[in-house]
């Protein structure tokens, strides 16, 4: 079967689900809409897996190099000859990999939600939004054109907005949705300007041609974009830095991360899908998609590296202090994406970082969505997000407990779970390319193990199990995704990823470096040990330790006051400093001037009303006076 025949179904079927569940759901489909959408996702997942199998195993390779296959490409909107938005589907190692990740996680979330969202008032709307999101995300990953990516980028943003604000009567959810949209919009502005620069300089918006034209260092276009500068920085650097800013916004990199923790106001399965596994890694995907351009620009790569490292360690420190389990997971996501980012930043020399970054994206999607779904099951049980209300659940929720433990081990980087392999790849790439980054990343992996097991022990141990609850852990539809994701979190690490995904499409065989792995694993075990010592049994130790850390702990618990800084900027500077004066000027000065002219005219006419005396001789006088004046003007002044 030709790719073009069925591939468009992969993104389009979820759109059908959106239209059906959104249009007919409330009145006709009702509780069937969940089953329908899940069924659609099952088909999409099977198609994605089939595509991946075909691409990687059968016809993707040619002469040992994975090819870019453009399955579909149509012109959607042409701005000027050659520069336009094409819609299409490209198959290459990263897009196929993303197809699998997005559809599998989406299917799991669809299935989990059958139980989790049961009885919800807006059940079919929820599934409609999930469909819209899946459509947008799939459209994003297969994009052939940078503007196509931007369009779907905005669409995933709006689906995220709708889903975060799903409980729309809750003011916190509304505020969080708004914040997420506006912060990412701000970043998208950078992305858009980056596209404008690249598009006009490259005279194309299609990835292939764009990359080809702007990496040909001999060409006139390349000269133009590198020698042209603004504020002393070359245009290419500006463009790439701005595109990265867009990616950093979506991927919640410091300092644009503030929306992600708040986004946890959405239903938990949504957090698993959007804010853990798929949408938030779109930034990493974008950099990977344009990697040949970034690889030639050391300045921007340096920026990416340091933003990534900073986000990784910063978020890990905060995660150690949060008590809302979803927020811990949110900061953990930010930290892990930081790993993926800096791995791309150090990948220019040998491409190892590139492979490792995408490998981590792949494994992270499974264990992080598992963590979120597990957290969802726990929240479903205790009806609270706060660690204080949890404890001793291991006997009551045995299945959730085992799955959650597997995910924690995976993210902590304990062999043989999936996270171990991908994290080792990143650490190895850091070791070879940038030692400072390596040490920070190593430290962060210790922190990761600590905060994840702090979470684990607080939920499942700490308190003695009370037998009060008797209801089951959840329906089979909720359990099945947990088991499947746990299996993936265990086994996904054994995939020889470097064989499939490399910057140049040539497969490599990577070997494990057992000696190298000793340090990170030991550090992770230390982290687990400390977490066990502090949190396995209820004790006063954690509080004491927090007091000893003093200011550092408070600052981390308050998320380093970044939100306050933003509050100050938006409330004080933008609203009070710009918005209010603009409105005031409009009312009092611009409009005041208009009213002033009007009243001056009215006043003047009141004064000169006397001229209209009704006496003919007065008019005659004005008439002749006028003629004489005109005559003088015409004869002497004008000439």
């Amino acid at each position, binding site marked *: 079967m030709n790719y073009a025949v069925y591939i468009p179904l992969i993104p389009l079927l979820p759109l059908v689900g959106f239209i059906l569940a959104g249009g007919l759901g409330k009145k006709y489909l009702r509780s069937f809409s969940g089953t329908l959408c899940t069924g659609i996702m099952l088909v999409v997942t099977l198609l994605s897996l089939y595509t991946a199998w075909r691409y990687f195993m059968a016809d993707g390779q040619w002469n040992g190099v994975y090819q870019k296959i453009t399955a579909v490409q149509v012109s959607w909107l042409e701005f000027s000859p050659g520069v336009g938005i094409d819609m299409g589907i490209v198959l290459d190692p990263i897009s196929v990999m993303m197809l699998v990740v997005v559809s599998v996680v989406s299917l799991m979330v669809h299935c989990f939600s059958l139980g989790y969202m049961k009885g919800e008032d807006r059940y079919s709307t929820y599934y409609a939004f999930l469909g819209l999101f899946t459509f947008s995300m799939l459209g994003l990953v297969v994009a052939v054109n940078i503007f196509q990516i931007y369009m779907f980028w905005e669409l995933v943003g709006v689906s995220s907005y709708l889903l975060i604000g799903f409980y*729309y009567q809750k003011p916190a959810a509304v505020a969080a949705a708004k914040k997420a949209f506006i912060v990412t919009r701000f970043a998208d502005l950078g992305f858009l300007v980056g596209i404008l620069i690249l598009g006009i300089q490259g005279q194309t918006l299609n990835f292939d041609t764009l990359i080809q034209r702007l990496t040909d260092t001999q060409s006139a276009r390349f000269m133009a974009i590198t020698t042209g500068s603004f504020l002393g920085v070359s245009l290419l650097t500006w463009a790439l830095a701005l595109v990265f800013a867009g990616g950093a916004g979506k991927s919640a990199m410091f300092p644009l991360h503030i929306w992600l923790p708040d986004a946890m106001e959405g239903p938990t399965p949504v957090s698993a899908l959007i804010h853990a596994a798929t949408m938030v890694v779109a930034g990493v995907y974008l950099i990977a998609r344009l990697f040949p351009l970034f690889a030639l620009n050391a300045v921007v790569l340096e920026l990416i590296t340091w933003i990534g490292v900073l986000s990784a360690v910063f978020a890990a420190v905060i995660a150690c202090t949060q008590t809302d389990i979803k927020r811990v997971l949110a900061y953990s996501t930010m930290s892990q994406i930081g790993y993926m980012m800096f791995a791309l930043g150090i990948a220019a020399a040998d491409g190892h970082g590139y492979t490792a970054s995408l490998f981590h994206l792949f494994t992270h999607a499974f264990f992080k969505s598992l963590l979120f779904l597990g957290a969802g099951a726990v929240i479903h049980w205790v009806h609270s997000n706060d660690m204080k209300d949890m404890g001793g659940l291991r006997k009551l929720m045995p299945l959730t407990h085992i799955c959650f433990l597997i995910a924690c081990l995976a993210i902590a980087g304990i062999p043989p779970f999936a996270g171990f392999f991908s994290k080792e790849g990143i650490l190895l790439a850091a070791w070879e390319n940038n030692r400072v980054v390596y040490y920070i990343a190593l430290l962060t992996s210790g922190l990761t193990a600590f905060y994840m097991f702090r979470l684990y022990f607080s939920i499942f141990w700490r308190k003695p199990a009370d037998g009060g609850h008797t209801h089951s852990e959840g329906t089979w539809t909720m359990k099945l995704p947990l088991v499947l994701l746990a299996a993936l979190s265990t086994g996904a690490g054994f995939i020889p990823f470097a064989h499939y995904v490399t910057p140049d499409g040539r497969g490599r065989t990577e070997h494990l470096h057992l000696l190298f792995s000793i340090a990170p694993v030991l550090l992770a075990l230390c982290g687990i040990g400390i977490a066990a010592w502090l949190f396995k049994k209820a004790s006063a130790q954690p509080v004491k330790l927090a007091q000893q850390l003093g200011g550092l702990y408070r600052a981390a618990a308050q998320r380093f006051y970044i939100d306050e800084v933003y509050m100050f900027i938006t409330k004080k500077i933008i609203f009070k400093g710009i918005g209010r004066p603009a409105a005031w000027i409009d009312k009092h000065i611009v409009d005041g001037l208009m009213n002033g002219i009007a009243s001056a005219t009215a006043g003047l006419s009141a004064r000169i009303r006397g001229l209209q005396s009704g006496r003919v001789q007065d008019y005659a006088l004005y008439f002749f006076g006028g003629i004489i004046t005109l005559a003088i003007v015409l004869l002497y002044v004008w000439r």
Partner: protein
Amino acid sequence: MSLNLLLVWPLLTVLVMLAAKTVRQTRVLALMGAVCQLLLCAVLLYSYQAERAAGNTAAFLFEENHSWYAALQIRYHIGVDGMSVAMILLTAVVVLAGVLVSWRQTVLGREFFFLLMFLSVGAYGFFISLDLFTLFFFLELAVIPKFLLIGIWGSGQKNYSAMKLALLLMGGSALIFVGLTGLYFNAATPGFDMTVLAAHPVSAATQRFFFPFLFAGFGIFTALFPFHTWVPDGHSSAPTAASMFLAGISMKLGGYGCLRAAIWLMPAAAQEYSWVIVLLATIAILYGAFATMMQTDLKYINAYSSVSHCGFVLLGIGMLTKTAVTGAILQMVSHGLMTALFFAAIGMVYDRTHTRLVSRLGGLLRIMPFMSIVFVVAGLCSLGLPGLSGFVAEMTVFMGAWQRQGMGYHLATLAAAASIVVTAVYILRAVGKVIMGPVAAGEHLSLKDASWNERLAAILLLAGIIAIGFAPGWLVGLTEPSAGHLLQQTGDVLTPH
């Protein structure tokens, strides 16, 4: 087809409506008239495309040229290009939607529908005119009913607003009149025929003198900064259908006039004043957006955001590249549909809750789901969501603007692009408070969702927005050649790399 039908049909409707005895009869006649108008425009679109497909490359199709007032060389010269066809379609859609939302207008209903229909005559006449004086004539024809619509059926400080609107628009007309007499007397052979004036432009010095009159005159109609202050007051006092007309069609008369009369007829001056237009447009975009952020009344929010959005029209015009001007035309159509939809939604809210204050509204999604979805989609279109028309128009303007060489123009484009963030802020604030959140007042719980006529109006406008947003190709293909034609003399200032 004969373009005269576009004038004859609404006039006939108006005449027949005079014979109607009750409001009921009048509104049925108005609805039938408006539906036929839309069909007529669909036929126009079809025959226009068919002619083009058959290889007719004339600048204007379906031309007719008769002497009207020979002593002053005023001619009844009509014809359409892609831009006119697009604007005529927009007019037909908004008129029909306007009639539908005013279905329950009972106070002086006959007169109300009569004026609505009369307005459409002015708009159609304006968009088909190729004679400057005829153009002006129809422009004036469209101003007077607006004054009455606001003054009689308006709310709030309606007299002040109606007066302000009429005075500012009349001021604009006075400027236009100066401009057109200037062109008349300085043309090689005195006359108002725009095709002749465009083929033989007046001298550069004359252009330099008269361009600001024509441009600012038309600019006032499309909220050119600092003459935009009629927009917020005018819109907020107008009844729903009049707001839809005002923002959906009247403001477009301005943008269309700027292109057709100022840019096309005075290419040298257009080049010269280009930076001024861009500067004023950029100010309008940002300043309008920031002012919107501080508004508390839904209609003021939409009115100020119209100032910002119409700034994109002017920005596209000022950039003088083919892509940017195409974007400006797209933005006119898109904004026309979107803002009409927004006003329709606001009207639905106001009719039921009797307030437009954001602070007194909340959680409407629970009470009026249909209306809320309309409101949200209009909002998303306004903030430029892909798949809706606003995105297509704004991106075309940005691309076209960025093609213009020069640091100043790039900075203007950047500043304009920055407004997409501010737009998101004010739209989401309004949506977050009015549609989402807790229900503001207990008595709102018993309110009814949109009625059939309101639903039809909303669906009609939504269909337009989505048709452009999903498949922009047809509209771009329709309007792009006319953008090229308008800039023929100006010379596309884009220097290709």
